[in-house]
């Protein structure tokens, strides 16, 4: 045989395996409105950048008639490539091969690329589209999942881990995405649950469709398991690329700077916010008035919308924003919003991304449901996350900052590096209405006209305490600024913080209120 014929033989073998589950299975995949695993990788990565490994791996099942079967690549594609010219490791489960079911060799391929990503300190992207464990492989299949979860945990906070749910992801398999940093879902395609609709029905008698139980919208809006929601796979890939452009390659690096841009003209921050703290506005407009190019890339947009988290750039550098949203539930902190913000803060801290907090909240949400569902321990997460974060931390108090909410939202007391307040800021133990009722209870009760007295006392309290100057007099606020100065002050604070050195006491790890 000549070298030439060897090469031809290799090409033939590759071509055969690259067909995955074959024409019929591919046709089925297309009918479900899904791209194939290979198409997905090629659509996501830079053109001609993908290199595949373990193409010729075969499954290891010996029982239940599996020994005679070939499963191309054992139902998963792994490899490396680039996004915007920066390297990533990637795996994509191939639903056309035995339903993307996870057997021993399938798992070994995934863990191989995970080890690679961790060793090389590059982001890992996992595309999930699998019917679950390969039952014929029994406990080897479970072992495979365990090895993946373990590596997800090892890699957590070291390299970015991105999970893309493009098909079913059921049973134990859901825990790999749950352990990663960002989960992407697509309408009508993503399905995630621990037990499917049929089990729910047979055991509990509850009728529910797959979409209602664990569809894309459910995870984006109700459970908070998903961070990004898209209508189509292509839109989802665009979101992933945008995210990659904002985050660093590993915890040893900083996010790559982009060309600095001014915010769009015509977005005037002082025109957005009403002075009356009880009247809402869209905090996203405030964020867009200060970020480069007025661009803001929101994370978990549909879940707990009373708090906003996401990325923007200031003078070309990535910044993580955490902001109360007065437009929804007056911007209160509650269980879901605390959980959402705390996780994002920890992400930013792990990956050297400065945090800018825009504050306007009346406090924590009252209610039996909140108390019984554990708002104490969940609310504590945000305090923990801000306190332990050592990246530059800047706070701008826009209007209300009452009570526990004031402390929680990156106050000086949790070691904020810079605290700015607008002249509209009200930093107080509670709002004037609540405070007047308590402080002047006797005067109000004994007054000839209690309602009139109450209003008078509310005004009195407002005058005296509902402003930024009491806190400024204590040094809890560094500077009271004009709204139009916000961007310039943040830019300067970021510049000063560039070489910030802060650390936590030596410890194995803390015990955050999970």
């Amino acid at each position, binding site marked *: 045989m000549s070298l030439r014929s060897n090469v031809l033989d290799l090409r033939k073998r590759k071509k055969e395996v690259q067909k995955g589950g074959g024409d019929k299975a591919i046709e089925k995949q297309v009918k479900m409105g899904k791209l194939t695993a290979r198409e997905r990788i090629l659509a996501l990565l830079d053109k001609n950048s993908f290199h595949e490994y373990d193409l010729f791996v075969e499954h290891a099942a010996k029982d239940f008639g599996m020994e005679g079967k070939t499963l191309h690549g054992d139902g998963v594609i792994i490899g490396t490539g680039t996004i915007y010219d920066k390297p990533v490791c990637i795996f994509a489960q191939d639903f056309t091969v035995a339903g993307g079911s996870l057997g021993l060799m399938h798992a070994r391929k995934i863990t191989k690329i995970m080890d690679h990503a961790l060793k090389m300190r590059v982001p890992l992207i996992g595309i999930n589209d699998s019917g679950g464990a390969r039952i014929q492989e029994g406990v080897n299949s479970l072992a495979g999942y365990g090895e993946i979860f373990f590596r997800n945990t090892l890699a957590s906070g070291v390299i970015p881990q991105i999970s893309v749910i493009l098909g079913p992801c059921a049973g134990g398999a859901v825990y790999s995405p749950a352990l990663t940093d960002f989960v992407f879902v697509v309408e009508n395609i993503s399905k995630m649950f621990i037990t499917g609709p049929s089990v729910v029905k047979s*055991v*509990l*008698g*509850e009728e529910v469709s797959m979409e209602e139980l664990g569809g894309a919208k459910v995870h984006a*809006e*109700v459970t908070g398991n998903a961070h990004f929601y898209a209508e189509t796979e292509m839109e989802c890939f665009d979101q992933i690329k945008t995210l990659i452009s904002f985050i660093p390659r590993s915890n040893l690096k900083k996010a790559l700077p982009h060309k600095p841009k001014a915010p769009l003209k015509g977005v005037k921050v002082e025109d957005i916010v009403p002075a009356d*703290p*009880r*009247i*809402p506005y*869209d905090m996203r407009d405030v964020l867009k008035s200060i970020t480069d190019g007025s661009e803001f890339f929101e994370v978990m*947009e*549909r879940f*707990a*919308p*009373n708090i906003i988290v996401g990325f923007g750039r200031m003078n070309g550098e990535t910044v993580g924003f955490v902001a109360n*949203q*007065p*437009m*929804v*539930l*007056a*911007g*209160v902190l509650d269980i*879901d919003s605390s959980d959402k913000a705390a996780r994002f803060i920890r992400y930013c801290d792990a990956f050297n991304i400065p945090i800018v907090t825009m504050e306007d909240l*009346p*406090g924590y*949400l*009252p*209610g*039996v*449901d909140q108390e*019984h569902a554990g708002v104490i321990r969940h609310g504590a997460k945000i305090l923990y996350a801000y306190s332990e974060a050592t990246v530059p931390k800047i706070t701008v108090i826009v209007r209300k900052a*009452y009570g526990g909410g004031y402390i929680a939202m990156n106050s000086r007391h949790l070691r904020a590096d810079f605290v700015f307040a607008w002249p509209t800021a009200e930093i107080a133990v*509670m*709002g*004037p*209405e*609540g405070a*007047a*009722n308590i402080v002047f209870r006797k005067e109000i009760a004994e007054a000839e006209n209690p309602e009139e007295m109450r209003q008078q006392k509310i005004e009195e309290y407002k005058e005296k305490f509902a402003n930024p100057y009491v806190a400024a007099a204590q040094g809890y606020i560094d500077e009271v600024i004009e709204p139009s100065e916000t961007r310039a002050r943040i830019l300067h604070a970021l510049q000063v913080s560039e070489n910030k050195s802060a650390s936590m006491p030596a410890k194995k790890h803390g015990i955050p209120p999970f």
Partner: protein
Amino acid sequence: MAEEKELKNLVIQGAVYKTTYTKRFENRVKYVTPDPNELYSFIPGTIIDLFVKTKQKVKEGETLLLLEAMKMENQVRMPFDGEIVKIHVKKGEVIPNRHLMIEIKPTK
């Protein structure tokens, strides 16, 4: 997204804020103090046996019914000495969680 919604009132510490609600907030279950005389299901399942009748006197700890759920037979027992006031379930009936099964009253 938020702009399209109608503004509603949210009262926090005496102040009335104009804002929008989330689905979760709108669907929150209003808290009701539990009535010790009403026995509710604590898990969805099937009533596989019923041992008591209306007006029957029952001692504390006696089994009233069997609720099968998650492959387990759960014995629902009388919490105190008393009487069966009303039975809301039938043998063989599949019931959801938090479903009123039996009303009882204590012996005076």
